[in-house]
């Protein structure tokens, strides 16, 4: 048994440590996920003007500031009693800038954070022993996904073509947000009751042009099959089976055309999505398509006990109508709220079923599984107690352990796609479950993110060119007195998953309580009071540290994939410390 620890897990947002025990067969038998920062964030909002929250909570995360800004603005709409009257064109502006941010965030994750691991030398070692096909596949992987400043065997490796092309595209997407929001990150355009800037006809034209440029990148690098054909046959397919068949048939055609020449290049029709969809999975690649090798990413990062895991979505993106119901995100959101169990059964989302445990976190009163609004936690102030090496029975993280109905909850693209019954992702999840794999695994998690990116690109075009009316109303006034002795709830979906902000104000209209439940807390959570591990921990235990080739404790690339497949955001996970009651020093909670 070898202790294999990754600390820090880089190429994520924030600072994360993954500690594992690994047997001689390379299988992980125990794992702890630790978030390494304590920041004391929401405390700074206490006794302040509630309106500041939408600005300042954006600073929880610089990668998804808009999601925090919007969850906060939803809570403020509720606090000031204007949620039901926010004009529809203001809601479209919010949709557009969140949609653009989610696309940019996913693209960054796929190309800059996750992608570089595909150029790991472990794959070179295995693939280059597999003759011409293996060599061709390796050359594509390193040629597309190698990161900046990368060296292998002492020699500098040129930056990958997809990586390199993605950086200006990400920049372009952020520019599109800035056009309607002032700047990115840290935009200034959110305010309860509406939006501060009505995009003009000129802006719409520019946004459309940005759109075409981004789609040009997509067609050159990401998806070689026609984009609309893809959407029609996957997102809009009449059944999950049809969506999966469309993709496997498309990949089979491609492979039949290019297998004899061993040409897996973009020019030959292998976009990054097609390439990963085929070569990333053992089931799809080897068993269905008959490829000689695959990365077997569907064999790691899965859940072994369906009773301990579920997939949670709070719901995001407004429908095109005036006002919305802040307390019922299921009815008037495009991405619905909901819960899918580990056995892929659908349930209604009930916020009352959320509890939190601090049994394994660095807080003094680590005891009961309380509802988010009730718990109180005092952080360790003794430096000697902040130790990360005590194992699964110890306290080992600044993250708390949120649970839904006693289960760990995966949030994010895979949870959202399952909850809206997106045909391709649902079909893949079912296919994996039926063939002895976990429905959720590194591969389905990544494909869900890719598919969500495509869906958002499709919906964005509608919001920009069809729904939004540049001559429409952009805001309704708020009455600051409404906040007095009132509270507000904002449920939303960040790129990384379900995000909730809650606010209360006192008789002076100032903040008395502010709290968040964020995706990072769900995904990276340590064990709870019953010893149930968090989603990342569950996915690590029972998985191999190397999916292909020999066991290599010094290059546990499987751990890198599993950790990064969740797109961890540790700043979010640990920066969400709420206020519990007025003027209550040293009582705070991490959600």
């Amino acid at each position, binding site marked *: 048994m070898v202790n294999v620890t990754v600390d820090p897990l880089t190429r994520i947002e924030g600072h994360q440590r993954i500690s594992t025990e690994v047997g001689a067969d390379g299988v992980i038998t125990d794992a702890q996920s630790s978030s390494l920062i304590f920041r004391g964030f929401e405390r700074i909002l206490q006794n302040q003007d509630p309106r500041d929250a939408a600005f300042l909570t954006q600073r929880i995360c610089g990668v998804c500031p808009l999601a925090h800004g919007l969850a906060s603005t939803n809570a403020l709409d509720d606090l000031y009693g204007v949620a039901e009257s926010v004009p529809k064109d203001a809601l479209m502006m919010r949709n557009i800038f969140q949609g653009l941010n989610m696309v940019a965030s996913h693209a960054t994750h796929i190309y800059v954070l996750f992608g570089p691991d595909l150029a790991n*030398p472990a794959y070179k070692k295995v693939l280059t022993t597999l003759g011409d096909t293996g060599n061709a596949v390796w050359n594509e992987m390193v040629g597309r996904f190698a990161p900046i400043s990368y060296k292998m065997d002492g020699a500098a490796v040129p*930056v990958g073509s997809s990586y390199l092309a993605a950086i200006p595209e990400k920049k372009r997407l952020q520019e599109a947000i800035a056009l309607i929001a*002032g700047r990115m990150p840290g935009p*200034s355009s959110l305010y309860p009751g509406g*939006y501060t800037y009505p995009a003009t006809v000129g802006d719409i034209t520019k946004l459309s042009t940005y759109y075409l440029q981004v789609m040009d990148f997509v067609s050159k690098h990401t998806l070689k099959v026609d984009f609309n054909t893809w959407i029609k046959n996957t997102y809009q397919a009449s059944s999950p089976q049809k969506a999966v068949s469309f993709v496997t048939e498309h990949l089979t055609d491609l492979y039949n055309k290019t297998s004899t020449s061993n040409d897996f290049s973009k020019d030959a029709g292998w976009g990054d999505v097609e390439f990963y969809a085929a070569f990333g999975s053992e089931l799809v690649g080897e068993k269905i398509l008959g490829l000689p090798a695959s990365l077997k990413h569907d064999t790691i990062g899965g859940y072994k006990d369906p009773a301990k895991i579920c997939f949670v979505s709070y719901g995001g993106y407004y429908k095109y109508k005036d006002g919305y119901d802040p307390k019922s995100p299921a009815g008037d959101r495009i991405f619905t709220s909901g819960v899918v169990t580990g056995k892929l059964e659908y349930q209604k989302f009930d916020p009352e079923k959320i509890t939190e445990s601090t049994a394994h976190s660095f807080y003094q009163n680590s005891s009961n599984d309380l509802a988010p609004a009730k718990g109180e936690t005092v952080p360790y102030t003794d430096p000697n107690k902040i130790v990360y090496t005590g194992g699964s029975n110890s306290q080992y993280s600044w993250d708390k352990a949120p649970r839904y109905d006693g289960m760990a909850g995966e949030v994010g693209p895979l949870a959202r796609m399952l909850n809206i019954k997106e045909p391709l992702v649902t079909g893949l999840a079912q296919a994996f479950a039926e063939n002895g794999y976990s429905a959720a695994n590194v591969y389905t998690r990544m494909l869900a993110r890719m598919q969500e990116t495509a869906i958002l690109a499709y919906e964005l075009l509608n919001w920009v060119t069809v729904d939004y009316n540049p001559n429409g109303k952009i*805001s309704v006034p708020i009455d600051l007195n409404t906040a007095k002795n009132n509270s507000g709830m904002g449920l939303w979906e960040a790129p990384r998953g379900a995000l909730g902000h809650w606010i209360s104000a006192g008789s002076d209209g100032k903040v008395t309580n502010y709290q968040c439940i964020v995706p990072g807390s769900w995904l990276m959570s340590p064990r709870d009071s019953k010893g149930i591990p968090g989603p990342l921990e569950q996915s690590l235990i029972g998985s191999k540290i190397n999916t292909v080739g020999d066991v290599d404790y*010094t290059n546990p690339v499987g751990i890198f994939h599993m950790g990064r497949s969740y797109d961890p955001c540790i700043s979010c996970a640990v920066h969400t410390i709420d206020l519990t009651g007025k*003027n209550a020093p040293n009582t705070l909670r991490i959600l």
Partner: protein
Amino acid sequence: MVEMSTGIKNLVRTLDSVDFLKMDRRTFMKALGAMGAATFLGTYKSEIVSALELAETKLLWIHGSECTGCSESVLNAGNPDLVQALEKLNVNLAYHETLCAQQGIWNDGKLVNTAELNSEILQEEIYKEGNYILVVEGGIPNGPDGSGRYLVIGNKPFKQTLGEAAKNAAAVVAVGACACWGGITNAESDVAKDTDYRGVAFSKTEASKGMLKELGIDKPVINIPGCPAHPDWVLLTLGAVILGKIKIPDDLSAVLDEYNRPKVFFPPDHVVHDNCPRRGYYDRGELDEEIGGPGCLWKLGCKAPYAHADCGIRRWNGSVSMCTQAGGPCIACVEPGFPDSSRPLYVEREDVGVAGTNIDTVAKVAVGAAAVAAGVHAVRRMGKGE
């Protein structure tokens, strides 16, 4: 490479021999506001490469307690983008936690593999070789009890990492409000004294409480504040340091202000208000009181009159917009002590003057009957500050 007009080409030629961080504001605004980072760095590159090959410079970029927004911002750099800029300047981004291929890999508590895959071994090698530029993003917790254990990365308090990295650095650049003075991590709260967050060289406005001083390390630090920092500010400053256009430490006292900010980007005699796209509305006394209008945002709490930065001329994200252009008040995120110094964000500030002028009086006069005349008067009075 972007196309240059003849006028700009002439301007570039006259600038070739000039150290831009030493320029006065007017010259700089004319030059950089117009031509941008790409032309500027590109010009220097061609000049220098033709004479002598630009030696490779190593950049070590470390992350404290942060939101990664400043790295995001630098990734948004356009013309040149980050990769192009590094190429032009022959920079080796030797370590950057969000971008590097490496990660910390430990077997039974010991570092394994090589610097090609292990970030901790890589960092140790970089420290040992020395002669690198250190960039710090994020705040540094001193708590609890001076241990720094509220942020531990790779089994080491970040406070200690900063010390090891700073010791052998040729230059230290703090990027973003958190690294400069603690920023949002250092905001007033009932836990602030426990967390005890610091900037690299300052805590809020206090130079005596910077983390390097706490560690007993005496190194000059350049502060590039902002929440986030503008990519041009970061790349141009790094460019000037790398190209030897600014000598450390000899030139620093002349090019930096009292908070170690390069005066060209954060001019003491110039505020965002001066070049705000909504300035005309202010001058006419058209002050919006609800969001979504076209007018001046002063009544909505805009802090542009107190923010010493060139946002108004430079704009953001490929110069497409800026905060006030999109109808949100400026939050003066470049000032030491942000966000406390700017809160409450949506309430107009009445007690601070601008460059010797009492803006409150000016604004009140401006909304009076003789709005236009008062506006003109206000402009003249504001102008005196220059």
